[in-house]
C-alpha cells in the first residue's frame, strides 16, 4: 500500500526541478494524446512554438493574447496574497469594461488624451466597486467570499447581455443585438504593432511588485494573509485592509476589462472576459503570487493559446483538442505542487525494513 507523508522543506532549486519535470511529463502525456489522434506530437509541439513566433504578426498576436491574462493575474495576486479567495475576476473585468464603455459610447466626442484616462479610471472604479461588494459582506457579516465573488460573475455577465439587447444596442446593426463599435478617440492606438495595453500591463507589473514588496500596504496584506490575529495584535485595522485590498484587486481586473474593450475588441461583448478571470487564478498561482512570475507564466500561456489556434488550422484538430492539451499541461503542473509538499512511501518496504532491523 502507498502512504502519503509530508516531506521536509525543499530548496528553491529542488522545486524548480520538480516543476520542470512536471512540464516535461505533461508534454509527454499530451504527446500520447496527440498520438492517439493519429498526429505526430513533435510536429504539433513544433507548430505551437512556430505558430506563436513564426512571423512578426504572430508575435504581436501572442502579446495581444497575453495582455489581459497578465493584468487579470496581477489583480488576483493582490487578493490571494491576503488569502482572500477572489474568484470573481471575470465579473470585475466585465464591470471595468462596462464602466469604461459608458464613456466610450456617450463621450466619444472627447479627445483621446482625455477619454483614455477617464476610461481607465472608470475601469478602475467599476472593477473595484464590484470587488468591494463581497469584501464588505465578508467584513460585516462573515460571508464566504469564494461563493460570493463567483456568483457576482454571472450578474455582471447578464448585465452586459441586457445592455447589448436593450439600452446600448447598436441602432445601425439591423436589429442584431450588439453594442456599437467604439469611435477612434475611444480606442487604444498601437505601439510597435500591438495595442498599447502592453505598456499598461508592464507598468502595472512593476507597480504591483513594488506595492506588495516595499510598501506598508503590501506588508499589511502579507500579515493579514498569514493570520488575522497577528494583524490585530500588530494594531492593524483588518477590515480596512481587506476592503482596500479587494478594491485594488478588482480595480486591476477592471483595468484589464478596459484594455480589452478599448484595445482589442473595440466594443463591449458578453465575451469580454471569456474565462480570463479564471485563467488568471492559475497564472497567479503558478507564479507563486510574484508579479514578474506572472509575466513569465502569462507569456507561456499566451504561446500555448496562440500556438494551439495555428495547430487547429494546420492539423484540422478541433478547438477542443487544444483545450484538452492545455488541461493536461495544467493538470501536471498544478499536480506537481503536491510533490513539493508530500511524497509517497511504500508500506511493504517499510515493513520489510522493520522486520530486517529486528532480526539484525
Amino acid at each position, binding site marked *: 500500500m502507498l502512504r502519503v507523508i509530508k516531506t521536509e522543506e525543499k530548496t528553491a532549486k529542488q522545486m524548480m526541478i520538480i516543476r520542470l519535470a512536471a512540464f516535461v511529463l505533461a508534454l509527454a502525456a499530451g504527446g500520447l494524446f496527440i498520438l492517439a489522434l493519429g498526429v505526430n506530437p513533435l510536429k504539433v509541439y513544433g507548430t505551437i512554438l512556430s505558430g506563436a513566433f513564426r512571423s512578426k504578426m504572430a508575435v504581436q498576436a501572442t502579446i495581444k493574447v497575453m495582455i489581459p491574462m497578465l493584468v487579470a493575474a496581477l489583480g488576483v495576486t493582490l487578493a490571494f496574497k491576503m488569502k482572500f479567495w477572489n474568484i470573481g475576476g471575470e465579473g470585475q473585468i466585465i464591470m471595468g469594461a462596462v464602466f469604461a464603455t459608458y464613456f466610450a459610447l456617450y463621450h466619444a466626442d472627447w479627445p483621446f488624451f482625455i477619454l483614455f484616462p477617464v476610461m481607465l479610471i472608470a475601469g478602475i472604479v467599476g472593477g473595484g466597486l464590484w470587488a468591494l461588494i463581497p469584501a464588505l459582506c465578508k467584513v460585516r457579516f462573515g460571508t464566504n467570499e469564494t461563493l460570493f465573488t463567483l456568483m457576482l460573475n454571472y450578474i455582471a455577465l447578464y448585465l452586459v447581455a441586457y445592455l447589448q439587447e436593450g439600452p446600448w444596442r447598436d441602432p445601425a446593426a439591423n436589429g442584431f443585438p450588439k453594442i456599437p463599435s467604439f469611435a477612434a478617440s475611444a480606442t487604444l492606438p498601437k505601439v510597435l504593432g500591438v495595442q498599447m495595453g502592453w505598456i499598461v500591463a508592464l507598468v502595472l507589473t512593476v507597480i504591483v511588485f513594488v506595492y506588495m514588496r516595499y510598501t506598508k500596504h503590501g506588508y499589511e496584506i*502579507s500579515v493579514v494573509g498569514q*493570520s488575522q490575529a*497577528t494583524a490585530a495584535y500588530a494594531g492593524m485595522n483588518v477590515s480596512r485592509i481587506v476592503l482596500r485590498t479587494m478594491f485594488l484587486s478588482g480595480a486591476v481586473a477592471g483595468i484589464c476589462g478596459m484594455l480589452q474593450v478599448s484595445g482589442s475588441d473595440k466594443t463591449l461583448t458578453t465575451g469580454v472576459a471569456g474565462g480570463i478571470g479564471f485563467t488568471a487564478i492559475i497564472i497567479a498561482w503558478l507564479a507563486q503570487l510574484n508579479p514578474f512570475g506572472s509575466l513569465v507564466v502569462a507569456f507561456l500561456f499566451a504561446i500555448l493559446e496562440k500556438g494551439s489556434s495555428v495547430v487547429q488550422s494546420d492539423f484540422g484538430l478541433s478547438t477542443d483538442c487544444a483545450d484538452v492539451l492545455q488541461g493536461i499541461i495544467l493538470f501536471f503542473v498544478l499536480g506537481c505542487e503536491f510533490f513539493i509538499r508530500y511524497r509517497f512511501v511504500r508500506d511493504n518496504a*517499510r*515493513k520489510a525494513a522493520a522486520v530486517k*532491523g*529486528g532480526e539484525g
Partner: protein
Amino acid sequence: MAQQNTTPNQAEPSAVGEYAIECRGVTKRFGTVVANDGVDLTVRYGEILALLGENGSGKTTLMNMLSGIYHPDSGSIRIAGKEAVINSPEDSMALGIGMIYQHFKLVDVFTAMDNIALGTPGRRLPARELRTKVEGICKGVGLTIDPAKRIYEMSVSEKQTVEILKVLYRGQKILILDEPTAVLTPQETDKLFAILRRMREQGCAVIIITHKLGEVLDISDRVTILRRGKYIDTVNTAETDEQQLTELMVGRPVSLEIDRPEQGELNSILKAVDLTIRKPDGAIAVDDVSFEVRTGEILGVAGIAGSGQKELCEAIAGLYPAEKGAVLYRKENLIGKNPREISRLGVHLGFVPEDRLGMGLVASMGMVGNMMLKTYDAPKGPFIDTAPAREQAEELVDKLSIVTPSVDTPVRLMSGGNVQKVLLGREIVSKPSVLITAYPVRGLDINSSYTVYDLLNEQKKDNVAVVYVGEDLDVLMELSDRIMVLCHGKITGIVDARTATKDQIARLMVGGKEEA
C-alpha cells in the same frame, strides 16, 4: 481484522514482571530528521514507567509507533513477548494497548458509557447491563463517575476518567498516557495517580509521558530518558533524584534554581477595575476582577487552563472586548481601544501571547519582517523601511544566541525556543513599561526556559511591570513576587509568593477561599 485477532491478554494471562512492551533499537526518520534513534524501552506488567524528555526528544513519536500511527524504520517491538507489527490503531488496540492522548477522543454528545462501549466488537449491550458493567469496573479501581452523564457536561478530569475506563473496558493491560496532568489541578493529579497505582497492583503496565520531574519521582517505578531522539538511559526511580534526571534529560549539569531578584520601585501602573469579559458564545470568561500591576515586580497568574487567563491578557492588550469595567493606565482606560490606539496613548505595553506563531508573529516571515510588526507604520510615507528591523534582528540574534540560518528565514522553521526568543526579544526591544507574558515557557526546553526567566528578571530589575501567566506552580512560586490565582474567571486570591505554600495555591485554583 481486529475481531480476528484474539486479544493477547485474554488468550494468555499476563504474568506480573513479564515484559508488556519491549522495544529494541527502534529508529524513525522524518526526512532528514531522526526522531527516534535506536530507542530501547521496556515496561513490565505491574509497573509504571515514566518516559521523560524535553520537547522534541521523541517521546510522542515513540508512542505513536506503539499506537500504530507511525511505523518504525528499523528495530523491533515485542508486545507481551511476541514480535508485533503494528500497522494501525486497530492493531494496537487488539494487542492490548490503550492510549490516552492529551486531547481526548470522546464524542461530546454521548454519555460516558456510550463512549466507553463505542467501537468495541460484539453485540451492543442494553443500557442497564452496560451501566452495571461500567460501574463494576469503576469499583474495581476506585473510580467514581456517573455512566449516564454526557461528555459535554463533564470536567476535564472526568473526561480523562472516561478515557481510562475505555481502556479498562476493553480489557487492555497496557496503558499509555501522554502528559495526562497538563490539564489537571494538583488535587485531580493526586487522584489520577491513585488510580494508576491501583491499576499497577492489578497487573497493568503503565507508561506515563511527562516532563514534570516531581511527578516522575512520585509515581513511577523506572524512568526512561530520551534526549534529541536518542535513548539515554533507564534508571530506577528509587535510586535517582531531580538533579540526576535533569542532567540526563538535558545532557549536562543544570542549576534548577530560578533567581528572584529583589523587587524594584513598586508603583502601581496598571489597574483592572471590576473587569468582566464575555466570550463570543456568551459564557463568562473573566468575572468582575480587580487587581493592580506594579512596576519592578513579577505578578504571577496561576489557574487551571481556561480559567480566563487568555481573555484577561488579550483584553488588556486591546484584542478582546470587555463587557464591563476598566483597565486603567495612569488614569487612561485601555478598554475599547485597539492596540495601536493604546500605543498612541504612550502606553508601552509588551505582550507575548500564548499563540506565538498565530498571533505574536508572522509565521511565514523572517525575523526582519517580524521585528517591524508593531513599528512598520511609524516612519512617514507609504514605504516600509527594513533597515532598522534588520539591524535589530541581527542584534537580537547575537544577544539571545538565536539559532537561525539567517534573519530572513521564516520563523516557522525555527525551533520553539528560538521562536520564543524572537517574540520576547522583540517585545523587550520596544522598551515596555508593562510586559504581559502568557505561558512564555510552554513547550520550551529547559535551557530556553531559563533564558526566558532571566529575561523577565532583567525586565523586573529595570522596573518594568511583568505579568507571568504560568502553569507550573513550582516555577510560579520561585519566579513571581505575587501570585494572583484565577478560578472560573474569578480571582480567588492574590498571595505573596515568598510565603505562600503550594497547597494554599492549589486550593485557591479550585475555588477555595483564602484562609485568613
